[in-house]
Structure formats: structure tokens, C-alpha cells
């Protein structure tokens, strides 16, 4: 009798093991505890720019995504990537701060990838639609995107593809660093957004400024960034000399960076900076440089750096 019980128990364990195997679920550690995800998610919705980027880098095209911050579509570098690889454009399911839950539901996702800042109330709703993967919140740091991309890669069961993509970024950055050192065009750098009343200096802890560091530039924030803030207040024009380094990367929300640079040059205070006089102001796309992250964004940022420093 006891014998058969043990046998049954073993048999039961075996069967349940098999059942788990056939359901093909894996468990991920997320900000809201352990989440079970299917082995091969087919309909992925990304509610975060970094998640969209990581999914594409891992070879998965999401069916739904949120817009880039302040825009009405995904970031331009993503559109370009989709176009170049003839991939289908994800449906827009809201903006990062305001997700359209009904639009998410309409996509019938089997996996949702969200931002670390996703509020718990939204998580509760979303996790009823599909397993929702939320990275642990960390203080602002230039390499946060790597840990997040890794988690998204695990969720998509594409760890290897993500590791390869990130290794490619590191390799490219190292090559660029060598080339920049050889050309001797390094030095100090600032990333700022220009307003007619003055610049807003961006943190040194963004993916873009982190990459600038990796290619050998000395990125500074003139001590203007308060803890855990992505950018400073508008700096007074009287203090412009504080951002007068060897390179100034000017993030613009407008499509036409050159036009934004021209309008900044209407300001006499801007025009007399050494960095402007020596034509080392680089207009860059604010969507990419101050909002996006992920392996593809990193490659696009490195493209911009290469074009600017090694023309």
C-alpha cells in the first residue's frame, strides 16, 4: 500500500513535470515578483521605448508599442530600422505616461514588456491581460539599459541575441574610442537642450552620455544636475561659459537639427562660445539622445558620434 502511494507520488510528480514542460512556461524575476511567461511569445506589446528597442534587437517585432516621449509615433530611428528590415509597424497603444489599456487588450498579447516606472495599479490591470514584465527600478545610471535589455531578452527567450547585440555595441564603442584617440578629437563634452532663454544641461547618467564616455570623451554636467534628475533647469544665459567644452551635443525635439542650431545662433551669448566658434556643436535628435535606450538606440547614437567626430 505504502509502496503504491510512493509510486503514485513519483508518477504524479513526473506527470506534473511533463505538464509544465508542455505548457512551456518560464519564470522571470521582475519588480512585481516572479512572473511566468510562455516559452515562445508571439504577440508582444512593449510599453516602453527600451523594451521596443530590445525586442527588435532580439529579432522580435512587437505587435503594439507606445510612442516616443513627446511624439505621436515610435522614435525615428525605430521607424528607419523597421523600414530597412521590412518589418511591420507596431500598433500604437498610447504614450509612456498614459497607456491605452483597451488598445493593449485589442492586440491580445501573450507578453507585455513595460518600463520600470510602471505604476502598480496599471500593473494589476495589465497583468490580467498577459504576463507583464517590469524591470526593477534603479537610480539613474548610464548602464541601466543593459540590465533592462537582458531581462527583456530573457522574457522573449532570446538571451543570446540580446547578448550578441550588446557585445556588438561594446565592440563598436571600443573601436570608435581607438579611432577617436588616434585622431585626437576627444576632450570635454556636454549634452544639452537649447531654449532661447538658455540651455538645459542633460545628466551624465543617460545612455547617450554613457556612450560618449565609452568612446573616450569626458562628459560633464557643470554640477547642474540634481540627484536622480535627467536634466537641469534652464541655465541662465549669463552662465553659458559653464557649458563651453570641446564638444557640445545639442539635443533638439525638432526634426531639423541644423535649423535648431541656426536659431540658437541668433543668440549672441551662444555665438560667442568657443565651442560654437570652432564649429564643434553637434545637433542631435532629442528623441534618440535623451529619450530612447536599448542596443539599437546605442548603435544609432554611436553612428551620430562617429559622423560628428570622425567625418
Amino acid at each position, binding site marked *: 500500500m505504502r509502496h503504491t502511494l510512493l509510486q503514485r507520488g513519483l508518477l504524479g510528480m513526473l506527470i506534473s513535470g511533463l505538464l509544465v514542460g508542455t505548457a512551456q512556461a518560464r519564470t522571470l524575476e521582475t519588480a512585481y515578483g516572479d512572473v511566468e511567461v510562455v516559452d515562445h511569445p508571439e504577440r508582444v506589446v512593449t510599453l516602453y521605448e527600451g523594451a521596443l528597442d530590445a525586442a527588435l534587437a532580439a529579432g522580435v517585432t512587437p505587435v503594439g508599442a507606445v510612442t516616443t516621449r513627446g511624439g505621436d509615433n515610435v522614435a525615428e530611428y525605430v521607424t528607419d530600422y523597421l523600414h530597412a528590415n521590412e518589418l511591420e509597424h507596431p500598433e500604437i497603444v498610447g504614450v509612456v505616461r498614459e497607456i491605452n489599456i483597451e488598445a493593449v487588450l485589442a492586440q491580445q498579447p501573450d507578453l507585455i514588456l513595460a518600463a520600470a516606472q510602471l505604476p502598480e495599479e496599471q500593473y494589476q490591470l495589465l497583468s490580467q491581460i498577459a504576463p507583464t514584465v517590469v524591470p526593477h527600478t534603479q537610480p539613474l545610471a548610464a548602464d541601466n539599459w543593459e540590465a533592462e535589455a537582458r531581462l527583456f531578452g530573457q522574457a522573449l527567450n532570446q538571451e543570446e541575441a540580446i547578448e550578441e547585440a550588446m557585445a556588438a555595441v561594446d565592440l563598436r564603442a571600443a573601436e570608435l574610442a581607438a579611432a577617436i584617440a588616434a585622431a585626437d578629437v576627444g576632450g570635454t563634452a556636454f549634452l544639452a537642450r537649447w531654449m532661447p*532663454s538658455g540651455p538645459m544641461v542633460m545628466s551624465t547618467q543617460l545612455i547617450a552620455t554613457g556612450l560618449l564616455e565609452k568612446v573616450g570623451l569626458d562628459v560633464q554636467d557643470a554640477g547642474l544636475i540634481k540627484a536622480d534628475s535627467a536634466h537641469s533647469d*534652464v541655465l*541662465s544665459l*549669463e*552662465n553659458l561659459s559653464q557649458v563651453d567644452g570641446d564638444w557640445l551635443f545639442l539635443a*533638439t525635439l525638432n*526634426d531639423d537639427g541644423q535649423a535648431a542650431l541656426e536659431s540658437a545662433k541668433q543668440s549672441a*551669448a551662444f555665438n560667442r562660445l568657443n565651442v560654437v566658434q570652432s564649429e564643434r556643436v553637434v545637433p542631435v535628435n532629442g528623441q534618440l539622445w535623451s529619450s530612447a535606450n536599448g542596443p539599437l538606440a546605442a548603435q544609432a547614437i554611436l553612428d551620430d558620434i562617429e559622423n560628428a567626430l570622425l567625418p
Partner: protein
Amino acid sequence: MLLTKAGSSARWRCSSRHWMLILLTALVAVSVVSLLIGAGSVGPRQVLGLISGSDHAEARFIVWELRAPRTLIGIAVGVALGVAGALLQAVSRNPLAEPGLLGVSAGAAFAVSLALVLGASAATLRIPVAQLGALIGCVCVLSVARLRGVGNDPVRLVLAGAAFSGLLGSLSALMLLYDQRAADEIRFWVVGSLAGRRLDDLWAVLPSLLVAGAGVVLIARPLAALALGERAASGLGHRPGLIRWLAVGCVALLVGAATAIAGPIAFVGLVVPFVARAIAGPDIRRTLWFCLPVGPLIVLTADIISRVVVAPSELPLGVLTALCGAPVLIAVVRAKRLPML
């Protein structure tokens, strides 16, 4: 009896001349301080060094290219908003009528935003567009003011103005969402500030300020008559309807010009006539004269404060005037009896 009245009038004239002198001296002093102090490291010592012949390029640039223009613009904006406030209060017979509170500034800012979204270049079209927006704002608000029951109650007019401002503000915000290209420029215009404004802008609005000034001189006497009531004004040979329209036109020119240079700056049009009336008494002509020094005095003082409180950044001037002006509004409303104009 007649003699004492004449005597008191002469005494009044004398004391008002004193007041004018004091205010003008204060204005000169504040203008000098405005050149001396800023958010940057160039302080009074370096600036005074310039006068004694030191060759500090940074200080020279900051004083002549940054602080001098914003001081001049501050003076122009203060005059325009102060006079516009006094006019609007006289026309609506309401001590709370203020271009910022009633949505006239919001109308101007909205019109500029709309023009930017429709593709106008910010540099050229802005001033006439802002003035047109201010005019439409004025007409809307004053037509509300003439509705039964609203005109008699100053606070209700302010409520109507607040609703109108809210509407225009949300429409501007909507356009911000809709158009990325213009977003940066609009953001810049919806917050009032004197920082980064160019002298070219001042020269561009100067003609319309002069036209408005001439208009004010023309209607000052009829406006004073209008304060006695419509019938009395008609009896004195004035045409109340025409005067009112001329005054509204002047307000639109002034507020449109000020908004086109500095963006909407709230409460200046309330506080300045309030102070000027306290000095000058109820006569609109004297009030208007006193608005000329008081307006720039208040705007420049606020601007200097806005530069130093959060250095190395600057607080937008519009935020600061709202912080200082709101208590005045509450004080006026809570006063036992609102002065009827």
C-alpha cells in the same frame, strides 16, 4: 470754501510731483541694479570696474548684450502692461480687470502659438498676430462684462476671465501635443520671461507702443469724464461707445506688444494701477501718469529677483509676478468694499 479747495489742490499737485520724483529716482536706481546683478558670476564689482576702464570682456558682454537689453525690454513691458491694466480697469469699471487675469494675454499667446503651428516664422509675424489675439481676447471678455449681472460684480468678471484663460491655455497645450516642431518655441512663449529676448524685438514693437501712447493721450480726458457715468460723459460732448473702443484698441496694442516680446506676464496689469491709484487718487489721468514709472519699477524688481533666487538658473518672470501678484488680488477682493471705478 473755494479758496481751501484750491489750496488743497495745489498741495496735492505738489505732493504728487514729489511722488513722481521719488518714483523716477527709484526707477533709475532699479535700472542700475538690473545692470549690476545677474544669475552669473559677473557681480557689481566687475561691472563698476568696467566704468573705471577695466577690460573684462566677459563682464562687458554680459552687461551690454544681456543685461542692458533685458532692462530696456523690462521698462517697455512694464509701461505697456501697467497702462493697459489702468485702461482696462477704467473701461470695465472694475478694479480687478487685468490683461493677464481676463485672458487678454492668453489670447495673445494663443494667437502666437496658432501662428507658429500654422507655420509662421516666429521672428516676423509674431507682433501683429499677438495684438490681434489680444484684441479678440479683449472683446470677448468685455462682452462678457456687459452681460447682465456680471458687469456689476468685479469678482464674476475675473471668474469669467479665468475660465476664458483656462480655455485658451488648454487649446495652446493641445497644439503643443499636436505639433513637435513648434513645441519648443511655444513652450518658450507660454512662460513669460525677459531672458534671451533680443533688442530687435523691442524696436519691432516700438511703433505700436507709440501709436498706443498717442491713443491714450487722446482718450485720457474722455475716459475721466466717463468715470462720472455715461450720461455725464455724453453731456460733456464725448461719445462713450467710441471712447471704449479706442481704449480697447490701445489695450490690445499694448498687451499684444508686451506679450510678443516677453510672453504672458500675469498680475502686473493689476498691481501697477493698484499702486498708482493709491498714490494718485481716483483720477484716471493721474493714475495713467503714475503707471509710467510704477510699471517698469515692478517688472524690473521682479526680474532682478527672478535672476538671483535660483542661480545659476533663472525663475521665469511670469512665475514670480504671479507669486507676488496673487496676494494683492486677494487683498483687493477681501477689502471690505471694492472701489467701484
